[in-house]
């Protein structure tokens, strides 16, 4: 016991043990990485073997993963995809605005505004309750069938209207969550300065509310990108419809993979852009103050 104490007291020994301890920890870390890598590769190997040796594999490979199918259908699908992009870019703008109006209507206080609040509630309930594909079919085929003068018959137009109406219901609720998450003391401070309710909303509450709900807003935007494919049910050729055309011509599904790749390709950069925006904005996320 006394001897150990002496050893520890020796500065040279102490230095060497610190070094050793450092190395030991590093060794543990390196070993952990190696194990993880190896086990992942082994797992990957098992999956590959299991899949490619299964009875149905050749058929599945021929129908789903034929590179010839994928590459030959890609140009047409990419061209058709331009329509999807146009639709969601235009619709998203309208959705962000309409949803904000609905959310604000819903937040108006007092008995005098009850009809507007009720309207907003009914709207969000209906918009979220009805299947999107139904609304698009009803509007896309139904509205022009009325044959009223001045009513556009363009199916892309009506599909866009349908998407805007439906998604505004979802996004309004996202805004509402954001608005309600801003501490009431912020509104109290703004109103105390003499700002009207609308001014307080515009300058103080909404800027904070919207920053807080950027991830769910992005979620709905990504959902919208996928739902642009529904315009195909009206016969318009967009990416998914085009991939169905190719698929039906060859009885294979490579075209679907090509379309899927395009949809994923726009989702990923968008998600990273949003992460970057949120990180950049993080400094202002917390309200400055004791109890906010």
């Amino acid at each position, binding site marked *: 016991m006394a001897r150990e104490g002496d050893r520890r007291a020796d500065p040279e020994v102490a230095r060497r043990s610190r070094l050793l301890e450092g190395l030991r920890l590093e060794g543990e870390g390196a070993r952990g990485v190696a194990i993880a890598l190896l086990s992942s590769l082994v*797992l*990957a190997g098992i999956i590959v073997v299991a899949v490619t040796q299964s009875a149905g594999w050749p058929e599945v490979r021929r129908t789903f*993963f034929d590179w010839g199918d994928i590459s030959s259908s890609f140009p047409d699908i990419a061209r058709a995809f331009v329509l999807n992009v146009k639709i969601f870019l235009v619709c998203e703008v309208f959705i962000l605005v309409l949803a904000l109006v609905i959310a604000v209507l819903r937040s108006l206080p007092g008995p005098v505004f009850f009809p507007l609040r009720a309207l907003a509630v009914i709207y969000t309930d209906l918009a979220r309750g009805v299947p999107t594909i139904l609304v698009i079919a009803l509007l896309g085929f139904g509205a022009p069938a009325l044959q009223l003068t001045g009513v556009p018959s363009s199916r892309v137009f009506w599909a866009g209207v349908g998407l805007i109406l439906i998604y505004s219901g979802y996004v309004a609720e996202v805004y509402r969550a954001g608005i309600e998450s801003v501490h009431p003391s912020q509104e109290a401070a703004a109103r105390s300065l003499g700002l009207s309710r609308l001014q307080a909303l515009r300058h103080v509450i909404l800027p904070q509310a919207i920053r807080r709900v950027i991830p769910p807003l992005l979620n709905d935007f990504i959902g919208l990108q996928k739902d642009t494919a529904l315009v195909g049910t009206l*016969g318009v050729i967009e990416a998914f419809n085009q991939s169905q055309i190719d*698929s039906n011509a060859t009885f294979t599904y490579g075209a679907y993979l090509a379309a899927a790749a395009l949809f994923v390709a726009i989702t990923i950069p968008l998600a990273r852009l949003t992460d970057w925006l949120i990180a950049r904005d993080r400094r202002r996320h917390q309200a400055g103050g004791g109890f906010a």
Partner: protein
Amino acid sequence: MSGQTRISLAVAALPVVLLAVVAAGCGSTKPSSSGSTTSASCAKADLNLLSAEKLTVGTDNPAYPPWFGGTPHKPWQVSDPRSGQGYESAVAYAVAKQLGFSKGEVTWTHVPFNNSFAPGPKSFDFDINQVSIAPARAKIIAFSDPYYTINQSIVVNKGTPIASATSKAALKPYELGAQLGTTSYQFIKDKIEPSKTPSVFPTNAGAVQALKNKQIDGLVVDLPTAFYVTSVQVPNSKILGQFPAEPGGEKVAMVFAKGNSLRTCVNKALATLKGNGTLKQLQQQWLAKATGAPILK
């Protein structure tokens, strides 16, 4: 070394897995189902069937005239394949009879068009649904010999500008449409080459509604279906014309799982029906009207 790092490494391995799967596919030579094509006997008891003693035939729902007829009963709509009326229903029962099945031993099952060529075991012995023979398709499923040659045709609203067109070329400036999964769309793209992007509808109902709404100017369908469209579905429409058959013409056939030996026996039955004039008689009975439209060159 944290659990998080392990997880992210495992996730990083996923694309590796996927790539390996695609790459490893090359060179795989094992055949799929083991149905041999060398079986010689087409006796009823020896047939390769889903369930013994029963012939399961697939087609899509709704079942449209003139391919199917009769009053529909649940779950079938518009027409009933079980009626024996309509060209494809009649042909199916005629083939079944040749194979030794009574009417009661034939069951019909709903097979949406897309499901007929989906990979994996089929839910039918054969599928009859105006499926055109195409070499690319023949790599995935097996076709019987053809039981009909069809022409494409175009349906338009009476009194519209397109209704005065007299040639294929005159159709170019218009918005045309076809149903998804039909060779009609390919026909539009390859033979008409319109300047406006055509429309492709997942359902017949959608295509018909778009024509009614004048959201498309003309609907390209096979001639027999065109008669149904103009007589029942779209009032005030007419068949502008039919397009002459390409050399050999567009042929429709039944769909089998690849390697299904039943196909040989069905082909034998079809050969018999052709030989003894039954097929022609059925065509006269159900598709006679479908020859009377002007030819558009």
